[in-house]
């Protein structure tokens, strides 16, 4: 899954929403093996920035360039994790896996996020943290070289946070480019991108 050529170039990026500049003149280069932490106040546009980067949000100024087609490499974990309450952990993950073209073992991935024993319970009966873990299990399915994670640490307990930290560092070491939003810092060497507070640059 190492692909040193996965590179992101952002230049003069700006986005306006409801007559308010979320951010403007944003520029950075991210390459494989780097971890980027995107911080900012609530409403600063973190989620919107990630949606622009993965191509879901099309209304912006400036340029976002990936060095190669993004879709086959991308593992995108949205703000809402895409978990349907009616489906069990395994069914949710199975669909995500088919959709993203990953091929890792479902049970191993669910065990990695400590959902062993909960795999057949409808997600609606699990706690918020456990639901988050179903989505995070995709990080253990492998095969993707660009991870874009929107608040992956939300509702995750301490042990889970440590595990996720380790997983992100391990993946970055293997050449995965990771961009995530959170106030939690994975570790040293993480690059930070701070978006202006809401209302700044009005």
């Amino acid at each position, binding site marked *: 899954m190492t692909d040193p050529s996965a590179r992101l170039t952002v230049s003069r990026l700006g986005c306006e929403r409801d007559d308010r500049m979320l951010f403007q003149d944003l520029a950075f280069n991210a390459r494989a093996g780097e971890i980027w932490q995107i911080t900012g106040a609530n409403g600063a546009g973190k989620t919107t920035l990630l*949606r622009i980067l*993965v*191509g*879901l*949000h*099309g*209304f912006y100024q400036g340029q976002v360039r990936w060095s190669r087609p993004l*879709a*086959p490499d*991308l593992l*995108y974990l*949205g*703000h*809402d*994790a*895409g*978990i*349907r*309450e*009616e*489906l069990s952990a395994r*069914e949710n993950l*199975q*669909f*995500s896996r*088919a*959709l*993203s*073209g990953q091929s890792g073992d479902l049970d191993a991935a669910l065990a990695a996020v400590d959902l062993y024993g909960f795999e057949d319970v*409808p997600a609606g009966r699990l706690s918020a943290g456990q639901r988050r873990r179903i989505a995070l299990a995709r990080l253990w399915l492998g095969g993707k070289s660009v991870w874009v994670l929107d608040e992956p640490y939300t509702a995750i307990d301490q042990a889970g946070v440590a595990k996720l930290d380790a997983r992100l560092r391990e993946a970055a070491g293997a050449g995965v480019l990771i961009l995530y939003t959170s106030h939690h810092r994975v570790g040293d060497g993480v690059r930070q991108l701070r978006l202006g507070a809401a209302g700044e640059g009005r």
Partner: protein
Amino acid sequence: MSGVWRASLRRELTLIWRAPADVIQPLFFFVVVVSLFPLGLSPEPELLALVAPGVVWVAALLAVMLSLDGLFRRDQESGALDQMLSAPVMTVVPVSAKLLAHWLLTGLPLALVAPLLGYMMQLPASVLDTLALSVLLGTPTLTVVGAIGAALTVGLNRGGILLAVLVLPLYVPVLVFGAGVVRTALDGLPTDGLLAVLGAILALALSLGPLAVALGLRISAGD
């Protein structure tokens, strides 16, 4: 790609199976609306048979429309829609599986019940199969065309009214030809031509509709 399609279809069927209210509601609506007509209008067989094609078709059309609002809503709210849109497969793949599942569990039951309701509406037994066939040919079009409207309005909080305004005009040809087929059969005339028109509309909807739905979803996600 076919693996994704199969996985999507299985997921959609499981979802509907786990929360069957969305399927039962349109069918229930269809049956109730048609059964109220003899009570409200008059139990005279000639009159009922005269209005039956229109009544059954209007009820079927509204029943399908009733089911559309929720078609993408929960996938949008849960973020599953963003997953589909950012996946390495074309959005049409999961979308077409969703449409098929939706038709199998809403449109098809309507077509199966339609002859029963036609019989209740005093339609002669000879046209009941034509009625079922027309509903069978018409409902997939209703699902696909309605899904375009549902895709465009999924980002709005209460898109129900807008959805109806968008979709109803597009439903009119299906209604005209659907009810027309049954009326023609009632008059004892050949129905092949009108059925062929319904089939042609269906072919057009099936070939271009899913693409339009996928595009609509992308537009909705964009903001």
